[in-house]
């Protein structure tokens, strides 16, 4: 298992992978600054948390959420497709266990999400230093900004984002295993996230039980559900998803091998 973890990590943790996510966070922060008269409201921590307040406005904030989500999905889609199409039989023969290969990849993906999201949060902190403005009247408009500490907001948001991003990314991989097409799989996840978000707006009481939306801080804070709810539903969803992925992978394994390497059978 350790050798396989190292194998996946060596390929995943490439300069491009480590840079693209923080760059997208920077893009998101700059977008928010530009629509808020050049400032991020609140002290350093609140200002840093502010660009992650998604989605207050569905039309504008949902695409912003997708901009954050897409690099994670793009990186993992490319990885899974390359591995399955080109290197799978080589690694499988050496690892000796297909499920070990899958589960070690899942562990590395979650680790990658944690590391790159942390880097993204540092970008937000930097944006908070540059653009934070305690005098901004926006602070008064968001009760959660006056009621909660900025550090608590950031920590809560970090864990919730990791969970909902992990669920989206693993769901994307599950659809790749089913459909065999990365683009279609990503499109399906985008549709699911959109449906989940619209459902959250229509039926607010079920928001804590919509793990795909957990990372959307505004929904959580505006509806005032405790962090623990989101963490529990997120962890349960993640565990179910991993179990389903194991089943599907085992069931589709031969098809994957034939589909990818079956030229000249």
């Amino acid at each position: 298992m350790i050798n396989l973890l190292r194998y996946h990590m060596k390929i995943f943790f490439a300069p491009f992978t480590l840079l693209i996510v923080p760059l997208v966070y920077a893009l998101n922060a700059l977008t928010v600054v530009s629509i808020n008269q050049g400032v991020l409201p609140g002290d350093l921590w609140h200002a840093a948390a502010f660009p992650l307040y998604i989605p207050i406005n569905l039309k504008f904030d949902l695409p912003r959420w997708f901009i954050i989500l897409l690099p994670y999905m793009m990186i993992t889609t490319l990885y899974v497709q390359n591995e399955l199409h080109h290197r799978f039989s080589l690694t499988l023969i050496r690892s000796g266990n297909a499920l070990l290969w899958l589960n070690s990849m899942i562990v590395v993906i979650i680790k990658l999400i944690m590391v790159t999201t942390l880097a993204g949060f540092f970008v937000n902190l930097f944006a908070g230093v540059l653009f934070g403005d305690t005098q901004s009247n926006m602070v008064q408009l968001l009760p959660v900004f006056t009621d909660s500490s900025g550090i608590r907001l950031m920590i809560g948001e970090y864990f919730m984002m990791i969970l909902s991003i992990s669920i989206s990314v693993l769901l994307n991989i599950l659809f790749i295993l089913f459909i065999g097409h990365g683009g279609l799989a990503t499109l399906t996840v985008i549709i699911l996230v959109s449906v989940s978000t619209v459902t959250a707006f229509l039926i607010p009481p079920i928001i804590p039980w919509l793990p795909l939306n957990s990372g959307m801080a505004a929904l959580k804070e505006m509806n005032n559900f405790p962090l623990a709810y989101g963490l529990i539903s997120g962890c349960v969803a993640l565990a179910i998803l991993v179990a389903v992925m194991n089943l599907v992978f085992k069931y589709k394994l031969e098809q994957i091998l034939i589909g990818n390497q079956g030229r000249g059978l």
Partner: protein
Amino acid sequence: MIVEMVNVTKDMKGHKILNGINFTIETPGVYGVVGRNGSGKSVLFKTIAGLLQPTIGNVKVFGELVGKGSFPKDFGALFDTPGFVPRYSALDNLKLLASIKGVVKEEEIREVIKVVGLEPDDRRPVRKYSLGMKQRLGIAQAIMEHPKLLVLDEPMNGLDESGVQEVRKVINEFKSEGTTVLLASHNREDIELLCDQVYLMEQGELRVFREDV
């Protein structure tokens, strides 16, 4: 027994690709499998590798059942032209693959790269390699862990004349070291020069085509 296939049938999409194959290899040597495209050679090799599961029958390699997620030990294989990490050099790609098993050292990997006619210190990424160079690297990954059973499915694909000569030399060296090599090739000369015994794969059935041993 090195390889033992008992009554192996493989159905795919309603077609019998392997049809009741009984095949054993008891002594090391080079065993060739010839047959037309689509005759089932690759399926046969992948079934021995544990990558495909027989519909009926079972496969044992070195006395252990393979398939259903278990793979032969002491085994190396080349199927088609394998894909490598495009941004990595040849050495880095092989080091990465070798890290999964962790049984070979860098010096041995360097040696294997030289054996197949590539340069271990060539830092060019593999994406800049020609098809023939990728094929050489594919052979290097198959042999680098010094397997006791080596399965090579069309190893000469994309190789120039010097590449073909080098691969023939590699196969003969492995044979002299007591490795069992299973070789599928369209090239009659390869089969004649290298194989101790040749089988013909036809309509999912395997029969002895030429026996020299």
